[in-house]
């Protein structure tokens, strides 16, 4: 069934398109997109968990869930922008932690007020991302290997400079933001921040020339270069953006924990890698680059966090969660290959 319009790979559903199709009663093409499938899956799991476990819909759990989802979305977005180039950013966790510790140092030791410190933290993240970008582009080495090396370099330097000491006395204004509650105590403001970032990125990739160039460079670097796009600059932009979003995710995690702790993203920041891969890949971002879905990544992050929380509540044993996430990642990756195979194999319209 060739839909009237095969949507631009990125868009969830432009408003006018839905209205038009509803009027002439044809199934909107959006039904077939990956994002709709995810939305149904999320709703199904919400239904299951709220019936099977009593604590799921409690105010406390929803609030806690909203915070974890917020951070996982941000981490997913930070990895998505690098997957766009067909590459990977293993140093995402290390960049986030280093930026957050730098921010903690600014706020606690240097006494810099909160807002300038946050700006400094974000620029530190962007700088570390820029370093990844420059090395990858200048040497032509696959970004996986470059970021594998920079992961341990960044984390090592951070730990040496801070002697693995946490910054615990952060200003109240900063730490309260993490536990503030909105919509009569159901949702954390962090979630609003993440959703807002999603819309900003959606606007960037869907409605601006830079965004379109980033996607084109990721899809076919040779063709993009010959069409007047400086592919190396675009790849560096992606890594800078990834570093920035990684720093933002780390700031959100720091407000949540209330302290900037070296081990917040685990050994070498590797704990971030699972959520960072799961959200975009489940969300429909092609691992070979050139196709991404911002809202897909958001829904991917929601689905993963929902599942983890549900498994915790179901007393299935918190230890088996990592196993399930591994299985889901494998299925998502196999699905991703099938999707890529499907798009290229479709029928020829002469």
């Amino acid at each position, binding site marked *: 069934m*060739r839909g*009237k*319009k*095969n*949507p*631009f*790979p990125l868009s969830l559903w*432009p408003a006018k398109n839905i209205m038009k199709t509803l009027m002439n009663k044809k199934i909107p093409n959006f039904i077939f997109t990956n994002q709709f499938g995810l939305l149904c899956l999320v709703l199904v799991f919400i239904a299951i968990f709220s019936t099977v476990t009593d604590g799921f819909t409690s105010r406390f759990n929803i609030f806690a869930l909203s915070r974890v989802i917020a951070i996982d979305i941000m981490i997913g977005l930070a990895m998505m922008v690098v997957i766009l180039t067909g590459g990977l950013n293993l140093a995402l966790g290390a960049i986030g932690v280093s930026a957050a510790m730098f921010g903690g140092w600014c706020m606690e030791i240097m006494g810099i007020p909160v807002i300038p410190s946050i700006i400094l933290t974000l620029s530190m993240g962007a700088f570390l991302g820029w370093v990844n970008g420059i090395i990858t582009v200048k040497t032509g080495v696959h970004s996986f290997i470059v970021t594998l090396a920079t992961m341990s370099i960044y984390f090592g330097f951070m730990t040496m400079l801070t002697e693995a000491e946490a910054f615990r006395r952060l200003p109240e204004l900063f730490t309260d933001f993490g536990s503030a509650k909105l919509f009569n105590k159901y949702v954390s403001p962090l979630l609003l921040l993440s959703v807002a970032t999603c819309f900003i990125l959606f606007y960037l990739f869907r*409605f*601006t*020339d*830079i*965004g*379109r*160039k980033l*996607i*084109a460079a990721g*899809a*076919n670097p*040779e*063709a*993009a*270069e*010959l*069409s*007047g*796009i*400086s592919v190396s600059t675009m790849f560096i932009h992606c890594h800078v953006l990834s570093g920035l979003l990684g720093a933002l995710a780390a700031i959100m995690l720091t407000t949540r924990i209330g302290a900037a702790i070296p081990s917040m993203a685990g050994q070498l920041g590797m704990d971030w890698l699972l959520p960072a891969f799961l959200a975009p890949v489940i969300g429909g971002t*092609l691992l070979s680059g*050139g*196709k991404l879905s911002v809202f897909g990544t958001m829904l991917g992050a929601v689905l993963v966090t929902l599942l983890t929380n549900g498994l915790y509540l179901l007393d299935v044993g918190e230890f088996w969660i990592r196993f399930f996430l591994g299985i889901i990642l494998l299925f998502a990756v196999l699905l991703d290959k099938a999707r*890529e195979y499907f*798009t*290229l194999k*479709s*029928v*020829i*319209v*002469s």
Partner: protein
Amino acid sequence: MNELCLEINSANKSFPGVKALDQANFKLKKGSIHALLGENGAGKSTLIKIITGVHKQDSGLLLINGKEKILNTPNDATKFGISVVHQERNLIRRFSVGENLMLNNLPKTALGLIDYDKIAIQSKKWLEIMDLDIDPNTTVSELTVAKMQLCEIAKALSLKAEILLLDEPTSSLSPQESENLFSLLRKIVRDEGVSIVFVSHKLEEVFNICDEVTVLRDGKNACTSESINNLDRKKLVKLMIGREEQIVKSDRKSDDNKDAILTLTNIKTELGHKDIQLELNRAEIIGLYGLVGAGRTELVKCLIGLEKITAGSVKINGKDVTIDSPKTALEKFKIGYISEDRKKEGLILIHNVLDNTSITIWSQIKRAIGLVTDKMIADKINPYISELEVKTPSIYQLISNLSGGNQQKISVAKWLAAGTDILIIDEPTVGIDIKTKAYLHKLIIELADKGTSIILISSDMPEMISLSDKIIVMKDFQIAGIVENDHSYDSVSAEIMEYIHK
């Protein structure tokens, strides 16, 4: 004696939108050296791919020593005794020569380990046949290109190959090395009973060693197994490119206001070009003609900044400029390049018509904070889509779903939308159906009339003669000669041929 060791009769093969082979046939006599000739797009490479098992023919038979064989993978071809020596070598550069020769059945010692001494002895036998006195333990990467090629032929012999296919074997050999290769080829045909399919664009080599010639043109046989002695250079060239179809008499008035928009003076490039002179006037079409490996595409890629120009000056409207990237070429000097490889360098297959056509104009049409909506783009590109009559259900259709002809129209529309002053078009009509081809020719002429200066690269002689005002003939990365085109096919094509085979 001369029964056929390899026979292909009435093979057809078509790709989306174009028929590559149309009832082509090929007969290789045992113990003979047979030349397979044809210009770009004549179906030569498709036939080679069928012989070597890379592609399967849609219909038609392939017989080896009289028995029909089905080749599903390149491996089957090797099994049935057909070996190939490609341009890009198939040897493992880090292994030793001996190991490369024996890799698929390495001799083992009693313990099942590789016996390198046995390898040396056994491989020595094959190397001697090729007069290669190199120690089998030297690693391949230390050899010269010529020696590597001889090793590859030795490997084919070690695989008990009866039919040896050499694809442009002398493209990176010095004349002296080529001569050595030819004498060896004659020797192995005589002594080893091997038959050789020799694919080359250097006609003097064909006359030097081949017994028979098959020429392909537009997917059909211009001649089949013609013996070499009743052919001379002129007749052969005529077979290769002689098409009597009428030349599109372009009513281009040759106005002689010579304001040069682009001048290249004694250009040398990193890739090996030497003292290139070129002057492109406004609204003029210059043709760059040459055979495969003449360095035309490479020259153009240096011009738009993909590769480095090491010496000489590039002037745009008389001013000295340096173009360091396609981005500067497009944005500062309005130079566009339509690539010959549509699928890899021209278009983004997984994106739709809207994106591919507008990729060059996003930064031009963006509003505040970089805003570029689908509607803005659609308004800008729809006129070009309709003007070029691109058949697509909607502008959101994926490029991979369009036919070859429509894809080529999109890659042209992309640059029309960008509004370039200088447009470089590389092999515009390779693998395009006749109707679209004629349409593209008309379009190129209209473009020039409207003031765009065009550099046309093509190895399609009639296309070149009907379109370009002036034809520059290139050979071995240098300019062999410049032909003023008066659109009379015979005189111009003869003059070009003169330069090609000087």
